[in-house]
């Protein structure tokens, strides 16, 4: 499965959930596949997508928060798995697209080919943790999402290989304003 296929499957299954997209190809593809005001495109701050999602989940417990993360991203902030497991917000769904590489910088390897991230999430305290490697299993697990106990961790194995996608063309401050307005929480 390619990264864009995974993102298309995930976004098709969602309705009004808030999505935090990790920097790099994930936010770019999310933007090109399904741009919506409920998306927060994290452009920099590599590693912090799941932390932003945790902050959201704690602040608005009645709203579902989905973070689409990458293997390089979460490996940079493994402590986030511990923090999420510890506070255990029921409304948080953490999806990691894992191509075992830093694709946007030329495909150098990460260490996720040997480190079982879904096990790390499980022992950190996520209530549900799954690993999927093909389109059918991903479709099945996203259809199941409303019934899974959170926090949920889903490791999605995807193919290596840079997929050409253009940058998010919304200015950072506009991403912020739009996202805050969609949540209805802040006057920006």
């Amino acid at each position, binding site marked *: 499965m390619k990264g864009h296929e995974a993102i298309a499957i995930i976004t098709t299954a969602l309705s009004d959930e808030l999505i935090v997209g990790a920097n790099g190809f994930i936010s770019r593809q999310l933007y090109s596949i399904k741009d919506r005001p409920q998306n927060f495109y994290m452009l*920099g701050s590599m590693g912090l997508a799941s932390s932003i999602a945790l902050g959201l989940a704690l602040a608005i417990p009645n709203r579902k928060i989905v973070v689409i993360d990458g293997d390089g991203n979460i490996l940079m902030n493994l402590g986030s798995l511990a923090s999420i497991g510890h506070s255990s917000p029921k409304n948080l769904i953490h999806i990691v697209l894992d191509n075992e590489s830093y694709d946007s910088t030329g495909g150098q390897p990460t260490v996720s080919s040997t480190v079982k991230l879904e096990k790390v999430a499980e022992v950190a305290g996520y209530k549900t943790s799954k690993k999927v490697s093909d389109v059918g299993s991903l479709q099945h697990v996203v259809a199941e999402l409303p019934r899974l106990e959170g926090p949920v961790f889903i490791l999605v194995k995807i193919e290596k290989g840079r997929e050409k996608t253009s940058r998010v063309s919304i200015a950072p*401050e506009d991403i912020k304003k739009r996202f805050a307005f969609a949540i209805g929480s802040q006057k920006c």
Partner: protein
Amino acid sequence: MNPVSFCKLLKSKGFNLFVGVPCSILTGILNQFMGDSEVIYVPATREDEAIGIAVGAYFGGRKPIVFMQNSGFGLSINALASLVLLYRIPMLLLITWRGDSPLDAPEHYFMGKYTVNLLKALEIPTFTLAKKNVGKVILKAHALMEEGKGPVVLLLREGVIE
């Protein structure tokens, strides 16, 4: 000012989520927040993680304060630059200033020496709390944070809040 009045003042300005990594200078203050059911206290594993959590909490309608030692501020520079400054997220950072005197432990020496210059380089408005100005400075920092829509730092030395 004592920790009780300090925390009361911050709460009166609407701050209601405290996330960060502790420092011994903050013990009294953190004890207040941890024991307060009206606020959310989130222990972070790293200071840049705390900044990420605070950004999410801000979007969720909370008014966060991020606390850390200046050692952790060093770790947070990219999160400040490419997240908080980039999106202009209003955020109050309470940073303790270790290494401000040569008598402090050696590991704090260089970060203590460079903290103010690093904050200047990032163009983040910074206020150093002193015993006689705490109340005034908090009001000023809060107003600036609200109107500037960006991060503001309170630098706290040992012995100012006790």
